[in-house]
């Protein structure tokens, strides 16, 4: 009797489960943005589901550092979600070439994006796009306005002013001049080298020349940023060698540091953590009046798993991601992740607005190591992490670092040989 009851119960759950499936399609999104879980669940997904009854969306992120590894394993095993958040450039290109991502050129909403925006998720010849661009992040420096007022420091625009400001904070002693550590390594390259670098190598001009093989990493404009980074070490506070990324974030938001070399993705976190007013300044130029260059890095896209069981529903979602409606929700829900659509989005957050305003004043470029140049072994991006840390610690001379990176790149990249 008891057993029969159990069977019945199982059968009925199975039935309800299948009937539910017949009505609703559930899409799973793979992502590394576990910080955004709440925003997806409370704003983005409800907005989509309200317009598209019958499609349910699940946002299932994994840890950023493990995302690529986890995603690749899941795709190979056939257990990955229907929609895949795309890292820019080679990681996603490899997925497309392996047949894991579908081409999306037949979608109307792709015309909402400029070629530069799409470039991070295209084949090298630009023939096929495989992810819908979602957002870019801009590098610069976020600063504590109260600290600047208290110590009497003006917001720097040139490099000389920048170091003068740091000196002043160091002399004053109330604040750690700059919050950054070298323990996790990537900040030194991402918020250090690729933040200040574009002013030296003139943004796209230098980046494309490097890819074409016309410039070398041993050239002055590629080595000079390391020499500048070498000067940072003195302003980073005690024990910065073992300071982690969360440590730096906390130091700044607790009001113990004056300047934070940043990516705009920090804005939403900092807004909730910091109880002082924040401002932002662009990477300082060498001489007043020089053209400024900023790293406006295409960072997130979203594509469709080629093996999905619900290609139609997935395309519906992607089309919505390409719409101005999504850009407005996303841009405002996640200040600091700037939508890439052609139509400018009105942002409410003052800090985000300030930073996105640089797009009008400066030339945009993307991180120098991301396109094509990190395809081989040794991996130029990972090498740049180590080199930037070595520069800050003063462990190697800038010229040696340039020579080492050039040697590694030339070992596999033909245009540089």
């Amino acid at each position, binding site marked *: 009797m008891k057993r029969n009851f159990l069977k019945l119960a199982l059968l009925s759950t199975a039935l309800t489960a299948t009937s539910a499936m017949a009505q609703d399609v559930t899409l799973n999104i793979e992502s590394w943005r576990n910080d955004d879980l709440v925003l997806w669940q409370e704003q983005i997904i409800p907005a989509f589901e309200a317009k598209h009854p019958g499609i349910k969306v699940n946002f299932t992120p994994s840890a950023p*550092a493990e995302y690529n590894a986890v995603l690749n394993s899941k795709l190979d095993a056939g257990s990955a979600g229907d929609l895949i958040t795309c890292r820019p450039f080679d990681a996603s290109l490899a997925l497309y*070439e392996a047949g894991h991502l579908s081409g999306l050129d037949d979608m109307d909403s792709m015309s909402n994006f400029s070629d530069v925006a799409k470039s991070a998720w295209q084949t090298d010849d630009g023939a096929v796009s495989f992810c819908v661009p979602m957002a870019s992040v801009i590098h610069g420096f976020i600063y504590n306005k109260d600290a600047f007022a208290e110590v009497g420091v003006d917001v720097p625009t040139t490099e000389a002013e920048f170091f003068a400001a740091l000196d002043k904070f160091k002399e004053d002693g109330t604040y750690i001049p700059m919050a950054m550590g070298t323990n*996790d390594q990537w900040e030194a390259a991402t918020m250090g080298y690729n933040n200040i670098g574009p002013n030296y190598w003139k943004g796209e001009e230098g980046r494309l020349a490097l890819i074409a093989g016309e410039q070398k990493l041993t050239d002055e404009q590629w080595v000079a940023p390391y020499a500048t980074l070498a000067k940072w070490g003195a302003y980073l506070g005690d024990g*910065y060698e073992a300071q*982690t990324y969360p440590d730096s974030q906390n130091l700044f938001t607790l009001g113990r540091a004056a300047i934070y070399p940043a990516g705009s993705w920090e804005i939403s976190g900092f807004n909730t953590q910091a109880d002082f007013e924040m401002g932002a300044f662009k990477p300082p130029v060498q001489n007043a009046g020089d053209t400024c260059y900023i790293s406006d890095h295409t960072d997130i896209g979203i594509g469709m798993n080629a093996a999905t069981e619900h290609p139609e529903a997935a395309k519906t979602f992607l089309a919505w991601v390409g719409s101005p409606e999504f850009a407005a929700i996303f841009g405002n829900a996640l200040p600091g992740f700037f939508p890439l659509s052609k139509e400018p989005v009105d942002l409410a957050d003052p800090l985000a607005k300030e930073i996105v305003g640089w797009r009008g004043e400066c030339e945009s470029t993307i991180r120098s190591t991301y396109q094509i140049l990190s395809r081989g*072994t040794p*991996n130029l991006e990972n090498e740049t992490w*180590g080199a930037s840390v070595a520069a800050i610690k003063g*462990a190697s001379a800038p010229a040696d670092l340039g020579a080492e990176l050039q040697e590694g790149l030339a070992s596999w990249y033909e245009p540089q040989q």
Partner: protein
Amino acid sequence: MQRARIRWHIPVFLAPAVLVYTAIMIFPLFNTLRLALYSKVDQERIFVGLDNFRTLFFDPIWSEQFWNALGNNFWFFIVHMLVQNPIGVALAAILSHPRLRFAALYRSAIFIPTILSFVIVGFAWKLILSPIWGIAPSMLDFVGLKSLFVPWLGKEEYALTTLALISVWQFVGIPMMLIYAALLSIPEEILEAGEVDGITGISAFWKIKLPLILPSIGIISILTFVGNFNAFDLIYASQGALAGPDFSTDILGTFLYRTFFGFQLQLGDPHMGSAIASGMFAIILIGVCIYLFGIQTRMRRYQM
């Protein structure tokens, strides 16, 4: 003549263990070894023989990383052998002293870190040693030795040794327990007979107890060896997959992880990864064989 009956119960009872062990240990092991002989060219897997191993050992980019990881691994092991095992033996000797009070308390307290997860240990120690929030700098400050504080985990020259000592802190309970058990099994009569011959106190330890627990120390050494050369978790939890600073804490396990699964912009390469895994397997196999055939067979055993 009666035909011998097939004894069905033997295969039946062996089957579960054999099947499970084959499915989750033997098959993956051999498949990894097989995978190391292939490479992926233009989305197609092709057989390349020992080419991956040639790259690993002779290509300067790969071999530098490999030898660095292997060297670090040996240092990690040496620190364990020189610090963990002698301390373990000493603790066991003290604990087995009949007049020690609260022995059970000490025993549990020292053993407890062993059951903690690597992630907790890595994270807790990272916080303890943090130059910003850690209690290590403030404790040193309290006794006036702040100048001795160094951000140990962030300096190339200290990071690996620091991590090895953290691992020693976590696992010192294991040799302690094994030696403690061995010491307890030494019969009183032997010690009393020694006392009659005038061997007491500390010399009783060196001349009677130590020779009797040598086989246990041998077992502990080999367990330490296998554990250290398979280590990965602690380094990954505290220093990340790049095993910073500047690869100074990179051991074979993190090197394998980075290669197999990829990292940041570097894509995973299962075939090179398998080659490294095979290398690790070979190193551990050789080490265990040296112990089994070179040392254990020559060790003298005493009838107790």
